[in-house]
């Protein structure tokens, strides 16, 4: 079997072509990198709205009397604080504080949770979760049954509201509604969350209904500026909003504290959790390196893996993500560097094709709505 036929496909794969998608291999998945143009799609999300197929994301259902306690010992944030129909961003760590994955936890009912995990990590995460199963609970990987669309941007709510009777204005940030009907499509979980730095919703549903939902939203949204968007725009949008991407800002080698998402690490929560000791020690001793925002002031674009040097040419870290920012029209990136050089305003150099190009540490997020 060739690698091409081995690529995994979302339920929408068959209709990508109809919308002009350019499909690429993205971590083993055949996914659209763009439909029209990354810059146009990016702009649409910042000013109007965009529709993303993110069905490759993984979903794990955890149910039972001990579901809450089980999840809480796996993750760094405190899920006992969650109300029903509330979601929480969290990390799942190794004992040494490195990150297994960053995930969203949805509290569906008192003893029922949905965990949304990164596509590239599904196997690894599920194995890790199974290894730590504890008490009266069961765990089910439903990634193959569930599809997900994200509608993001200032007009997302108005467009989605056209096709549902559920009052979307009543859904707060990081809150969600269950069993929502959208047009003819039933049983959708509608969550006010996203990965773009804009307002918007993530919609979870059975995979056999997702093509109908995609087409319906474009049918009612196109006249309002809704555009189908690919992963290219998703990446530039999330980078401007300084949202970490697993495999770049977070990894088994990078803790959530180093990644700058310390707000998800609750070392004082009641329950013990995997990684607590290492993360507490990191907090106490102070970090030696962390992710910072950089702006390249010379000519060049920082890219994942490029070396970061101090002003006097000493190697101090590495670029984790970088792009030409479509909204700011500047060359920006995130870099994991020594804390000695991490203060805003510190001058740095990025090694781009054997040249040392000037850069500076800047405040993040780069873009805020």
């Amino acid at each position, binding site marked *: 079997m060739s690698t091409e036929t081995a690529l995994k496909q979302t339920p929408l794969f068959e209709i990508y072509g109809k919308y002009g998608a*350019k499909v690429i291999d993205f971590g083993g998945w055949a996914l659209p*990198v*763009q439909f029209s*143009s*990354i*810059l146009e799609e990016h702009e649409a999300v910042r000013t109007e709205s965009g529709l993303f197929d993110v069905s490759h994301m993984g979903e794990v259902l955890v149910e039972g009397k001990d579901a809450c306690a089980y999840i809480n010992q796996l993750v760094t944030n405190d899920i006992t604080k969650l109300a029903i129909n509330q979601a929480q961003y969290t990390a799942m760590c190794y004992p040494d504080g490195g990150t297994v994955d960053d995930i969203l936890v949805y509290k569906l009912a008192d003893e029922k949770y949905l965990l949304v995990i990164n596509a590239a990590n599904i196997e690894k995460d599920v194995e890790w979760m199974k290894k730590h199963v504890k008490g009266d609970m069961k765990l089910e990987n439903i990634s193959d049954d569930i599809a997900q669309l994200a509608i993001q941007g200032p007009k997302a709510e108005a467009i989605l509201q056209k096709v549902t009777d559920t009052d979307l204005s009543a859904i707060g940030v990081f809150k969600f509604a269950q069993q929502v009907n959208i047009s003819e499509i039933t049983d959708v979980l509608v969550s006010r969350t996203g990965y773009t730095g804009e307002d918007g919703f993530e919609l979870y549903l059975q995979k056999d209904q997702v093509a109908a939902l995609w087409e319906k939203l474009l049918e009612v949204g196109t006249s309002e500026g809704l555009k189908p968007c690919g992963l*290219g725009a998703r*990446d*530039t949008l999330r980078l401007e909003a300084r949202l970490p991407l697993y495999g770049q800002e977070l990894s088994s080698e990078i803790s959530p504290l180093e990644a700058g998402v310390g707000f998800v690490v609750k070392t004082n929560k009641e329950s013990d959790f995997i990684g607590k000791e290492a993360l507490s020690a990191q907090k106490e001793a102070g970090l030696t390196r962390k992710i910072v925002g950089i702006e390249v002031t010379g*000519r*060049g*674009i920082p*890219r994942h893996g490029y070396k970061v040097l101090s002003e006097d040419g000493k190697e101090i870290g590495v670029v984790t993500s970088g*792009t*030409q920012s*479509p909204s700011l029209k500047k*060359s920006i990136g995130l870099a994991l560097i020594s804390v000695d050089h991490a203060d805003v305003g510190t001058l740095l150099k990025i090694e781009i*094709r054997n040249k040392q190009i000037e850069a500076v540490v800047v405040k993040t997020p780069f873009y805020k709505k």
Partner: protein
Amino acid sequence: MTKATANLLYSKEHEWVEQLEGNRVRIGISDYAQKALGDIVFVENPAIDDEVIVNESMGTIESVKAVSELYSPVSGTVVAVNEELEGAPETINENPFKAGWLVEVEVSNPEELESLLNEEEYEAFTNEGEE
């Protein structure tokens, strides 16, 4: 579809070559290449007086998503550079055959031009790649 207006030659690395007076040529990237790259946001051309060598890197071109090498389709000396691209790299997407040209080179070995593809051959070559 942007059509080439001059009688251009092409490399298999998707550069076009327009023969100007004497041994001088103008070089750019093809419409096929700009489409494949997507939104171009950065170009690093060689400088005037730089020597370029056939099939070797003479610069880079970056889209939002990726970095690609620019391979010189000829050997010679750079005699002109399209400075407009520094502030407006998107010109390559908009007009790859005219305003989006990259550099002009004084060719040192004109025989190299014979191994380039003509329009028809290049079209066949790109179609082949798509199957």
